[in-house]
């Protein structure tokens, strides 16, 4: 009970206007609450209609919602209390009473209507998916995609296999854009002052107003980062007509650092492309290039890294060094990781470029520095230094200098023009825009897909300046914080609904074509600009075609068709600019000064980025890389900082910075540097952001100021009363430290201080994770099965840790199930499906999980359900921390149903709902399941998922379009799990059977395998000795998890090999 009743919106506004300097609570975990007594008081004395009217009014207040959530905790989100009295709830009551009457078993199906086409489209075969190429435009470069379309409904987004940059791979964000398309909260109308209006009206109003200005004076566009050449061309046309109109690009998470550094170093804005397949030594300076497309070129970088990290005899392995603040998957894939405060990273980078050890470094850091310098120099130019986009400009300048001095430029690094056709210093432009707004120069502020009210640095006073603008227009996918207070809101079309083009990381122009008619007649930025031009009715298609003529060579009609078919335009990749950069640019950036107080590092969230995916349930629920947080962000800090601040995990902590405060839950992450707190952006959204985004986490933008967008110092943090139960999908490391590990009989002194992760310790004790160093594997290639190497404490847990077959005489039923039966007519040995996962290649990026969501109609269940441990993802990435939690190693292990040949789950199911197929799949028959959950208990891998409540959304119309028609939508009370994408297997079997042939190796690709950017997952027929999966399984490093249980899993793992620097060993 922190505050009494009040209208939350007004309070917040009043607080935002309060003078700086006075601490103002902006965001709270538990804001205003109402008590039941107050509700009674409000309704007291009201009867009849007045009562209901009051109730209605009351129901609108946020405080009432708070109360309802408190009294009925699962009101928000998908949960057990949802709409108990609604129509749906009533039907369910009816259904349940029928069920109780025992009728459900023999009820009849209702009549089902068929709606045939009037004229069936050509090429359409109902039930056969079609595939179209397009691209997902992202600020760091477009991601080329191939859309699976079922009767012209996009049902899956995957990488475009023919694209030279992505080679068919994709990432979590791109996969999740599918749900973004079908988001039921998308804005569906053009709004003018909150009333439904039309595009025509806006177009006319805009064009008329523009014509009245002198050359566009006062017309300002505020756009997200532009990657579309056509949009840039269109803007040129606009400028020709209205030379005074201005275009400002702004993203809260931008590339200003590299822009500034490249301008200083090269004289012009420059992007860097890295060829990691050429690099022996890689240094990442706070660059999370394995984390996702937030880092430019994630797909080729991850593929290149994994290619060189894959262990094959005789092939040199790369070595990765990472210097970073927030522990990322990149950091934990690294052989050597150094956790430094953000300010220290610049110092470290400059020192490295200058060849002198950094000032004031600890002995450990000195050692790291020395070894790293030597390793880079010794690589003979086959090395690369990658600066992170969220690192300061000095780091970029140092990286430019290093790459030049190490001789990497031209070999592993090339510098090109920018993907953004109109690169700018976004922060400077935003500042000048706000100045113009304050000065009253801005007549029309047209915002293209941005949400500055939410994301602009608070100290700019954007909100106040906004009030000064007579006409504000927002083109947005949601009526979000900005859209709600703009004069005009234009509903934006999704990229899967619109025409455009965009450049990918390598510069290749990629055509964006619509997959579906705009569901809500949305408009794109092309339409907005076109409204000012001579021919305002010209469609985005016309615009793109007109501009495409400038870059499609040869016969346009043919070239255009090919570009649409392939999804990209040949010969449009960037060519390298000549030369590198010297050290001179380094001088232009001051080294961040020594800091006082805590540093705060602002990071885009690994799951929802800058907040743009906040309403995408798949991503909100996705356990975040490294932290395994779901539906939350946290003040992330090291174990020492946690102790210094006298905090426990899940305690609310008040962070004060420049007179503003946020209250965030504290969380410890192993390997985080001391004295700094990392906060992730994009959370703490209001009701405008949608049903999923609303009320998740805290808003870190509230303490982010313009001059310190990346990190800041001088913060204080203090525990505040209360507790906040963080939603984390695995054990809390802080709670499960190595008290048991201390008592390990075999390594009695390994964990003297009890700072090992118990889970991580056990993972190795139990041979779940097996790996070796390069030296060890050379000595003993069979290390995964013979003890001795690091992380392979095998021969300890049980009796047959290698998973070898039980000797014939020792088995109760030795000849029972034969998976190598021969077809008597063809003598062909049957298929037996299996999977191999290369732990060396897995980078923990989560792309597979989101792909699985889309492919298998997995429901989103909401925070409360995830928190108690009911997450529905069929596939998870297990993260284990090894060793001292101050500076641990980490291991990622994708874990899904292992399809055990002697599956414990099958044996205990009383109704035979889970059985084995002749081809060795462990099949779950949903419609037979009665839900005893015994199978889950008896599954040692805990990969079974149960519909504890009605998780699948049967009501939201837009989501029905999204579902994969080949996979059942599971109702409540039913167990489910990874099926090895059995629908794809069956599809392949039918196709092959029709053509009277065998299934080819590689013909069946599981959804996770398809998405994996590093090819870590191999699937196929293990009876075909020539298949990739059989070869992977034949490797010595291949092992079964929990092999000693003799469940004989069909999924096996290839033990990792790391290549540490002997000097740092």
């Amino acid at each position, binding site marked *: 009970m922190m505050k009494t009743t009040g209208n939350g919106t007004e309070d917040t506004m009043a607080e935002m206007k309060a003078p700086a300097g006075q601490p103002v609570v902006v965001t709270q975990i538990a804001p205003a609450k109402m008590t039941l007594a107050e509700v009674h008081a409000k309704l007291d004395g009201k009867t009849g209609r007045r009562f209901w009217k009051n109730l209605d009014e009351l129901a609108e207040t946020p405080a009432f919602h708070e109360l309802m959530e408190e009294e009925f905790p699962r009101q928000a989100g998908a949960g057990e209390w949802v709409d108990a009295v609604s129509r749906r709830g009533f039907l369910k009551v009816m259904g349940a009473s029928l069920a109780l009457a025992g009728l459900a078993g*023999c009820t*009849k*199906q209702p*009549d*089902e*209507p*068929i*709606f*045939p*086409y*009037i*004229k*069936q489209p050509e090429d359409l*075969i*109902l*039930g*056969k998916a079609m595939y179209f190429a397009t691209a997902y435009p992202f600020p760091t470069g477009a991601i080329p995609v191939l859309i699976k379309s079922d009767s012209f409904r996009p049902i899956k987004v995957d990488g475009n296999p023919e694209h030279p940059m992505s080679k068919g791979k994709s990432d979590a964000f791109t996969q999740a854009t599918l749900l973004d398309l079908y988001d039921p909260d998308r804005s569906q109308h053009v709004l003018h002052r909150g009333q439904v209006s039309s595009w025509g009206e806006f177009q006319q109003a805009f064009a008329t107003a523009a014509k009245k200005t002198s050359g566009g004076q006062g017309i300002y566009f505020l756009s997200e980062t532009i990657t579309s050449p056509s949009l840039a061309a269109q803007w040129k046309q606009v400028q020709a007509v209205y030379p005074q109109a201005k275009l400002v690009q702004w993203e809260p998470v931008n590339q200003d650092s590299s822009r500034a550094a490249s301008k200083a170093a090269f004289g012009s804005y420059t992007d860097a492309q890295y060829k990691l397949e050429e690099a022996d030594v890689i240094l990442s300076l706070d660059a999370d290039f394995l984390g996702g497309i937030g880092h430019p070129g994630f797909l080729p970088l991850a593929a290149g890294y994994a290619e060189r990290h894959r262990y094959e005899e005789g092939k040199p392995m790369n070595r990765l060094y990472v210097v970073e603040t927030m522990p990322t998957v990149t950091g934990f894939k690294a052989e050597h990781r150094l956790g430094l405060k953000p300010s220290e990273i610049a110092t470290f980078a400059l020192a490295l470029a200058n060849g002198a050890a950094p000032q004031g470094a600890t002995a450990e850091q000195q050692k790291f520095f020395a070894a790293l310098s030597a390793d880079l120099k010794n690589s003979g130019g086959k090395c690369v230094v990658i600066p992170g986009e969220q690192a300061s400009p000095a780091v970029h300048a140092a990286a430019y200098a290093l790459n030049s001095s190490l001789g990497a430029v031209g070999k592993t690094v090339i510098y090109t023009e920018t993907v953004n056709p109109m690169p700018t210093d976004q922060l400077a432009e935003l500042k000048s825009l706000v100045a113009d707004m304050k000065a009253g120069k801005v007549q029309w502020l047209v915002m293209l897909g941005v949400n500055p009210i939410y994301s602009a640095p608070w100290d700019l006073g954007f909100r106040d300046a906004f009030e000064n603008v007579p006409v504000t227009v927002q083109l947005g996918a949601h009526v979000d914080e900005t859209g709600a207070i703009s004069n005009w809101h234009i509903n934006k079309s999704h990229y899967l609904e619109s025409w455009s083009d965009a450049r990918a990381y390598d510069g290749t122009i990629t055509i964006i074509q619509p997959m579906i008619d705009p569901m809500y007649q949305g408009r794109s930025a092309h339409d907005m600009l076109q409204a000012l031009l001579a021919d305002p009715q010209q469609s985005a298609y016309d615009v793109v075609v007109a501009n495409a003529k400038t870059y499609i060579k040869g016969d346009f009609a043919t070239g255009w068709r090919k570009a649409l078919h392939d999804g990209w335009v040949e010969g449009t990749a960037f060519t390298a600019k000549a030369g590198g950069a010297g050290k001179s640019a380094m001088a232009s950036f001051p080294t961040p000064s020594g800091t006082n107080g805590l540093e705060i590092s602002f990071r885009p969230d690994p799951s929802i980025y800058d907040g743009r995916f906040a309403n995408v349930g798949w991503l909100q629920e996705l356990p975040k890389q490294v932290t395994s947080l779901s539906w939350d962000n946290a003040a992330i800090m090291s174990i020492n900082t946690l102790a210094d601040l006298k905090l426990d995990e899940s305690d609310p902590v008040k962070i004060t910075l420049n007179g503003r405060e946020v209250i965030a839950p504290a969380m410890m992450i192993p390997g985080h540097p001391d004295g700094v707190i990392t906060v992730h952006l994009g959370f703490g959204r209001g009701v405008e952001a949608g049903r999923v985004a609303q009320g998740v986490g805290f808003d870190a933008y509230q303490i982010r100021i313009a001059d310190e967008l990346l990190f800041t110092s001088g913060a204080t943090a203090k525990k505040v009363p209360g507790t906040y139960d963080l939603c984390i999908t695995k054990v809390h490391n802080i709670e499960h430290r190595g008290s048991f590990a201390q008592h390990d009989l075999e390594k009695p002194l390994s964990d003297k201080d009890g700072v090992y992760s118990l889970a991580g310790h056990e993972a190795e004790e139990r041979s779940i994770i097996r790996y070796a160093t390069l030296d060890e594997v050379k000595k003993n290639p069979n290390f995964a099965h013979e003890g001795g190497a690091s992380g392979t404490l095998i021969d300890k847990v049980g009796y047959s840790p290698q998973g070898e077959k039980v000797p014939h005489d020792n088995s109760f039923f030795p000849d029972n199930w034969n998976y190598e039966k021969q*077809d008597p*007519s*063809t003598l*062909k040995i049957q298929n037996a499906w299996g999977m191999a996962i290369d732990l060396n290649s897995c980078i923990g990026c989560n792309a597979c999980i989101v792909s699985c969501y889309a492919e298998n109609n997995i429901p989103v269940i909401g925070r409360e359900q995830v928190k108690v441990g009911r997450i529905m993802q069929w596939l998870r990435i297990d993260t284990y921390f090894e060793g001292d939690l101050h500076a641990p190693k980490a291991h990622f292990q994708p874990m899904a149903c292992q399809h055990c040949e002697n599956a414990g789950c099958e044996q205990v199911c009383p109704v035979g709902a889970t*059985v084995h*197929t*002749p*081809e060795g*799949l462990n*099949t779950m*028959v*949903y*419609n*037979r399941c009665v839900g005893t959950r015994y199978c889950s208990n008896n599954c040692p891998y805990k990969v079974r998922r149960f519909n504890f409540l009605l998780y699948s959304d049967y009501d939201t119309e837009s989501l029905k379009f999204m579902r994969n028609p*080949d*996979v*059942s939508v599971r109702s409540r009370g039913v167990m489910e799990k990874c*099926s090895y994408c*059995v*629908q794809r*297997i*069956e599809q392949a079997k*039918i196709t092959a*059977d*029709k*053509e*009277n*042939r*065998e299934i080819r190796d590689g013909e069946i690709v599981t959804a996770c395998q398809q998405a994996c950017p590093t090819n870590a997952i191999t699937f196929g027929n293990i009876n075909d000795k020539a298949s990739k999966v059989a070869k992977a399984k034949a490797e010595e490093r291949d092992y079964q998890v929990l092999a000693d249980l003799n469940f004989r899993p069909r999924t096996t793992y290839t033990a990792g090999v790391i290549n540490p620097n002997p000097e740092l060993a």
Partner: protein
Amino acid sequence: MAQVFDRSSNALARFSLVLTGVIVIALGVTLDQLQRSPWVTRQGQRPDQPIPFSHKHHVEGLGLQCQYCHTQVEKAAYAGIPPTKTCINCHAQIWTNAELLEPVRQSWATGASIQWIRVHDLPDYVYFNHEIHVNKGIGCASCHGRVDQMPLMYQQNTLQMEWCLNCHRNPAVNLRPTSEIYNMAWAGPSGDKPVWCTSTGVGAAGSGPTAQNVSCTTTNPSGKGPEVAMLQLNTELNGPTSSDVPPMGITMPASYQKFTNQMDLGRYLTTQYHIRNPEQLSSCETCHR
């Protein structure tokens, strides 16, 4: 102290015991029969359709091929219902004013679908694939019955799991040459009407579609040149099938095998068409995902 119960109560008590037993048994039998009854399965029911479309008239009367309307039966998982366009193809010329056809014209004019009621309706958790059945030698009539003799469409079979399993456990009973798929009157080979089949060699190496794997004929190939039947062919009832498009590049093989009963033919086709074994066909994942 006298009798509590009347003399008759002994008989009554025993009778009610027997009756209870009978009721329990009767209830069991009733429930068992109920789950198989047309009330549950909808066998033989003719739902009210917007247009009383007669397959009998169009197929038997006019001789339309199945595939004229159901174009994707061989190509897709769903058999498919023809679009309004298909109706209009003819009915733009004939019966243009028939009152019965008003919904068709309405649909054509307004662009709204004709709302049929689904006759063959499987539960949503059953993933039945139409194309593979047609391509592997299951004739239309095996599942749908004599559609050509149905004035109004109804469901011939129960479509229950046990019915599916009957065939999946022993496909040979229902297999026929792919040339006879659309032959509504196909009765299988008999002593009077034998069938001659031969392998065309196309599918022998595991290549080439099932439809071209085997060539069958109902006339003695030793008498005259065999008439090789193709998948999308003849609808002439009861008559011998003939080929109007001979398969490309197939040389006529020499040896024909004569079949005089369905089981022999079924077993031959099972091998030739590479029908999966019963273990695989009755495995859960074949139909449920």
